[in-house]
């Protein structure tokens, strides 16, 4: 497989990047990347290392595996570009559809991609089941109230009587003191809430939203996956004859790959063969 990289003309060919000009995500040095506002040395190092391990990056979305903050991804999106490459695959004869599809056997299959998307969206069925189970069993534990109460009471009575000089003098008469301690343990089992509770209903409500999100994510990632596969088949069996058509197809392939990466947190590109960005 031979790649003829074609730089997009509007990004310019100047070898010396002007200040603020976009740099190539695949060719920029660590220093170039670190110079981007909001990126920094450590992130630039991570990007260069990932790029080297993969043989190239298809889009900024592929960097999601590094768990970079969205602001950093935004900075990279705004200040980098990716070269489109036109592939010149040697013509090969295929006997049947199975042989054609086997060309892509090194890539993650659709079920793996669906799992990646669910993981990234945190919408796995297990997570939802866990919520529901927790909401159901939480009321097995009793509500525990511990109470300690200290009552201290003291009172003195005095008697005022005139002395010989006729002045009033105060004489203690009695005193009354109490020092009480109250300890209380209260356990409360809401057995009715084991059967059905407002908390469980709220969790079911939340679970419905999660399922909706999961269905939406799975629908979108499945569509992108097979749109990409159809395009790959077209490029293999019926490649555009003109350069413009080839470039458009390659750009569309990058776009679809980036779309899947956005939904899988870059895990899709991480699972692709290292030679193909």
């Amino acid at each position, binding site marked *: 497989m031979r790649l003829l990289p074609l730089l997009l003309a509007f990004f310019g060919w100047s070898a010396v990047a002007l200040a603020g000009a976009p740099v190539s995500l695949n060719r920029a040095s660590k220093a170039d990347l670190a110079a981007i506002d909001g990126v920094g040395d450590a992130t630039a190092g991570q990007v260069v290392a990932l790029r080297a391990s993969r043989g190239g990056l298809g889009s900024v979305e592929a960097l999601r595996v590094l768990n970079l903050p969205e602001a950093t991804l935004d900075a990279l999106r705004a200040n980098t570009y990716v070269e489109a490459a036109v592939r010149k695959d040697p013509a090969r004869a295929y006997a049947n*559809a199975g042989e054609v*599809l086997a060309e892509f056997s090194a890539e993650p299959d659709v079920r793996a991609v669906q799992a990646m998307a669910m993981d990234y969206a945190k919408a796995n069925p297990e997570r939802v089941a866990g919520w529901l189970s927790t909401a159901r069993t939480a009321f097995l534990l009793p509500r525990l109230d511990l109470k300690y109460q200290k009552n201290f009471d003291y009172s003195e009575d005095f008697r005022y009587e005139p002395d010989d000089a006729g002045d009033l003098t105060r004489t203690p008469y009695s005193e009354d003191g109490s020092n009480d301690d109250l300890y209380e*343990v209260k356990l409360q089992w809401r057995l009715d809430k084991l059967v059905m509770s*407002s908390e469980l*209903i*709220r969790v079911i409500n939340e679970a419905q939203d*999660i399922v909706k999100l999961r269905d939406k994510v799975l629908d979108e990632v499945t569509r992108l996956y*097979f749109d990409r596969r159809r395009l790959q088949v077209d490029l293999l*069996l019926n490649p555009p004859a003109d350069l413009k058509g080839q470039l458009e197809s390659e750009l569309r392939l990058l776009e679809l790959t980036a779309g899947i990466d956005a939904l899988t947190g870059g895990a899709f590109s991480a699972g692709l063969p290292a030679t193909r960005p």
Partner: protein
Amino acid sequence: MPAVRWLCSWMVCVVALCAAGAARAQDPLPGEAIELVGAPPPPYAAGHRWLRAGVSEPVYGVVESDRALVVLKADGTVLRGGPAGWRVALPLDVEAGPDLSDEESLLLEVEASVEDFSDPVDAPDDPDTIVDVDVADALEAGLLDAVEWVGADGAPLARGIWSLPGGLVIVSRSDGVWSSSDGGRSFTPQPLLPAVHAIAALPGPTYIAATVEGVRHSSDGRFWLQVESPLDGHVIYDLAKVGDAVLAATDAGLFRSDDGLRWEPLEPEGYEGQPVFALAPDPFWPGGAWVALAERVVRTDDGGLTLRADSRVPLYGVRSLRAPTLPGRVLAAGDDGVWESADGGVTWKPLSDGLPGPKQRQILLREDGSAWLAGAYGVWRAERVVGPVSFDGAAAAAAPESLPPLGVVVDASLRRAGVSYDPLLIQRRLVRSLYTPRVDVRAQLQRERQRLSNFPAILTTDTDREVVAYELRLCFGRCGGTDGQVSFDDPDAASFGEGDIFVVGDEAFSGADQGNIAASAANVSERLAAQRKAAADAVSDLYVTRIRLVDERAGVRDLPLRDQVLHEIDILEATARLDAWSDGLFSRTLLAGSTGKEP
């Protein structure tokens, strides 16, 4: 016996040549336009039925662009995809839309009958009363079989979708006209183009649009110029290139133009000024076309100069005519269902097997020869019937793979975490919870120490006392109140004040509902029921689609390898979607069938 074999082969050739010659002699069409290779495929009416294609809401139209279907729903949403899955390409509420107020006033004129109304209170006394309801109400009340595609003022709605060469797709809906240059994947507004009734593409390329403000002309489908013509002020229902000219079907009859710029009315004898609703050029006869009038489909052989009624059978309310690339074949769809003629329009047969009702709007003939239908009941595809049609058992059993029964897959989709709760179960549990007690166990130890001194009597009394109390309390229902020093308060009751508003799901409840979770449970149950129904519908559609795709495998083996691969990808996509809905059960069952192991 080489001599006998040689003689036989010559006899076969002679018979074949005679048959071809006879066919040419009987055929009234230009011989050079027809290639007689084998027997023509049977008409759709002979052995086809309609199957739902994943969109069940009313749609204005369906087109093919870049190998995918693009659909305009009656609510304005544009979908792209196919039976294996649809994606929203243009939502209804796009901010860039100039005005959405029209959508709110979009009215469908409904011929309602008493039994159509779910609520008898709303039913008119006279069964023939014409009432206006909005789209949502019409959908809810199940009045789809009576939908008329007209606006509140009775004029035809300028709504539709058109696919033009180069991946160009144009949509006309309530908030204006939108165009796509990438096969319907994304759309941008077309402020220069008023609402469109019809669009035609001419060689050049040149595009002609019939709008509510007259004819527009474009060379690229993006920039449109107004053309003054006698068509201004008329409703143009259809445009079609017939021979070297383009014909316009209008409420004032046929108009003709050679370049889309200069138009002249046609006055065919006997049909002067009669409204024309649809056109279908005859691909085998330059200048030939079928023309849909209000009550009949007629024929022209000379570009509309003369019209001829070949059939005595009336066809009412035809809105779409299409002629497949098969001699003499023509399809008609409209208010009276779908009809097909295999003899150039002389006789017509109904093609309605499988359809829930007659109101249709558009036929699409795809490049692969399949026929698709758009109308009040969504999008449908004509499927070839092989033996008795059954998609829930027989077809699955006949399939070579170990297909799980549809019921099992649907059940798996309903057992997924988050949708597995039976809505009725929630209500039942709620009632049961009212009869389940709250258990309070209380243990209390109180130590009292008291000293009492009386100085005159020089008497001091010390009291030291311990009190231990245990309590077991069962409480049903709401358990508020206090008991001595221990407060048995109800946490639910404490959560909301009388004047508070709290929101559960899509509904708001007042604080007066405090402690009563019935309202929120009812709301959740309703959402859950809708979610489960949507899951079951989606799985059923995908299941049937996948069976069809697998069934068609043998048919695509004669196609180029690329088409075979794309067909396999369609099957893989349907399988992946079924797996997504069933948490992988579908593939696990298939795999178990092939390996003999339990899933």
